[in-house]
């Protein structure tokens, strides 16, 4: 055996390491599971040039020109008219809530103007809170629509290249007209930062007691499961409050993110979101045996939520199954809420849905955690 390096010593170290790896099933599962999940999510769900985005059509007179244009827009693959006969007010509500990414408005005199060659105009409002969502759809828009219209009116022959007959497409990039990415990312980051710290901190709550041997003592004293849970998670609501203040002030002062909504509404949403997160962390804590496992489970949860929530990639651009999967993450609902309130100035009715979803998470996580909590050492 050499003094500095011996294969036999190395082999002993490797053998011990492999035995420990094999005993720790969760780590082993993570080593196989994480690459697989990452691959599937990145490979299939992520789309940075999102297509099939939901759109609403406001067209009081649905004549053949309108239909031709709508089908041409759909053929581009970027638009999917989920609300083909919306009123102006309905469309406004839909885009505020984030249910549609576009509102296409065809004025009632559109058909007549086409036939007369009198400056036909359509209006496309795009939800530009996420600039990447709108860009592809907008860039293909003008040409496609114009060509479709020319075909339909049979005006191709005369190559009606006069100013008067050409379709005018007016695009309104709503909420973020300059397409500044930070406007979308910074509010989202509040959710991501809160999620990372809150879940990770509370996921250690019980495993730390178990690892230090204090759990046996805690259980032998008359504390009830709900008291233990609240005792563990409430302090982190305070930590969360500090983080929220820091991120919101930074968003305003450093990134100049507009804040058009009501602060109390946002704070209520953040509060429910943080409550859901700390209880989720606690739930992870009841399911893990060591702090290491708790960390791994947190990470296991963290990664897909980042990818599927709409934080990194446009939510509406993902395939339907991925969108459904995205619904199980509190972050998804929180992003809808904070973007709606901060950037779109949504009122309570506009964010009632994500708010309710977050409240459901709080209830569900708390119930599961209390059911999972072991009052005994069995």
């Amino acid at each position, binding site marked *: 055996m050499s003094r500095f390096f011996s294969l036999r010593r190395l082999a002993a170290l490797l053998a011990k390491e492999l035995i420990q790896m094999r005993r720790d099933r969760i780590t082993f599962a993570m080593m196989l599971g994480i690459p697989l999940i990452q691959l599937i999510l990145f490979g299939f769900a992520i789309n940075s040039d999102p297509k099939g985005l939901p759109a609403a059509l406001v067209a009081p007179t649905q004549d053949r020109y309108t239909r031709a244009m709508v089908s041409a827009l759909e053929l581009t693959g970027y638009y999917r008219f989920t609300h083909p006969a919306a009123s102006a007010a309905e469309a406004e509500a839909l885009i505020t809530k984030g249910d549609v990414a576009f509102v296409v408005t065809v004025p009632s005199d559109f058909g007549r103007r086409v036939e007369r060659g009198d400056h036909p105009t359509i209006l496309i409002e795009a939800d530009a809170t996420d600039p990447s969502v709108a860009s592809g759809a907008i860039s293909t828009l003008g040409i496609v629509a114009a060509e479709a219209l020319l075909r339909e009116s049979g005006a191709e022959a005369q190559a009606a290249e006069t100013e008067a007959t050409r379709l005018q497409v007016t695009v309104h990039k709503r909420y973020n007209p300059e397409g500044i990415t930070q406007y979308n990312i910074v509010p989202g980051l509040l959710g991501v930062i809160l999620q990372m710290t809150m879940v990770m901190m509370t996921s250690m709550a019980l495993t730390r007691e178990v690892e*230090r*041997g*204090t*759990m*046996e*003592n805690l*259980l*032998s*004293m*008359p*504390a009830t499961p709900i008291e233990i849970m609240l005792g563990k998670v409430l302090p982190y609501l305070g930590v969360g409050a500090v983080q929220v203040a820091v991120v919101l002030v930074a968003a305003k002062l450093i990134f100049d993110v507009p804040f058009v909504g009501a602060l109390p509404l946002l704070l209520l949403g953040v509060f429910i979101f943080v409550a859901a997160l700390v209880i989720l962390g606690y739930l992870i804590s009841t399911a893990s045996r060591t702090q290491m496992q708790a960390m791994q489970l947190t990470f296991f949860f963290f990664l897909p939520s980042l990818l599927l929530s709409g934080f990194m990639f446009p939510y509406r651009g993902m395939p339907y199954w991925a969108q459904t999967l995205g619904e199980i993450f509190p972050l998804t609902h929180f992003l809808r809420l904070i973007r709606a309130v901060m950037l779109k100035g949504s009122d309570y009715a506009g964010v009632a849905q994500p708010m309710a979803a977050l409240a459901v998470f709080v209830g569900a996580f708390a119930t599961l955690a209390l059911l999972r909590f072991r*009052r*005994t*050492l*069995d």
Partner: protein
Amino acid sequence: MNAEPAIEVRGLTKRYGGRAVVGDVSLTVRKGEIAGFLGPNGSGKTTTIRLMCGLLTPDAGEGRVLGHDIRRAGRAIKREVGYMTQRFSFYEDLTIEENLNFVAGLYGLRPARRHVSDTLADLGLTARRHQLAGSLSGGWKQRLALAACIMHAPKLLMLDEPTAGVDPKARREFWDEIHRLAAEGLTVLVSTHYMDEAERCHRINYISYGKLVAKGTVAEVVRNAGLTTVILEGDDLTAAARRLEGAAGVDQIAPFGATLHVVGRDGAALRQSVERVAAETGTTMHPAETSLEDVFIQLMGGAKDNMG
């Protein structure tokens, strides 16, 4: 003494992965007595104690602790029992006083400050109350743990190997404290594998590989074991020990300093064998008292290891 016993459990069984760690243990502890709970490492003492204070659910068996059903009334038991865990299980990053404040709060003691300061004074911890629990030596940690267990004035104290790793002086003081508490009417169940500690208990219960194999006062246990002990003295004890190996009637041979303890169940055969060896090796034989340790070694040899 005719009142209901503090602990009365029958047929307690706890299995882990099909292996009975505790198998059919029945135990009675009278009010106000110090009951010793003895047995070798891994014999199921800790598991039995946890079963009795509601920290584990038994797979079979039933019983009452302080009149409460151990299966159903775990919460009531927790309020009236003080349980001192084998491993120090208070918060090392809290001071003595902070730990006691925490415990006082959990038991809802009022006024908490008064309870804590009284307990600190009772156990001589007042001067150290601002010291972090993690920085305490074994003896002081044990004292803190005892303080935390008795602060809520439990009726029953369960101590799981409380003196492991504690020096003789601290052990002596600890036992004086236990006797003082018992004199005030507290019932104490204490597990140990120190023989001198077993002898300080009113009654002892010996558990081996999950089964209760002996119980009674120390004198009763020694008498019931039916062992005969003789001592050999002389120069060539090593040769004597070698010759006694496997001889008729000889169960245990143990050197104690300049003497050799020889123990056996069959007194006549034992004496015969030892007399023969004494003559052969030029050593002298004296009759001796059987000690509790001799009994326990004998019991351990007789019980089947439940790992196999």
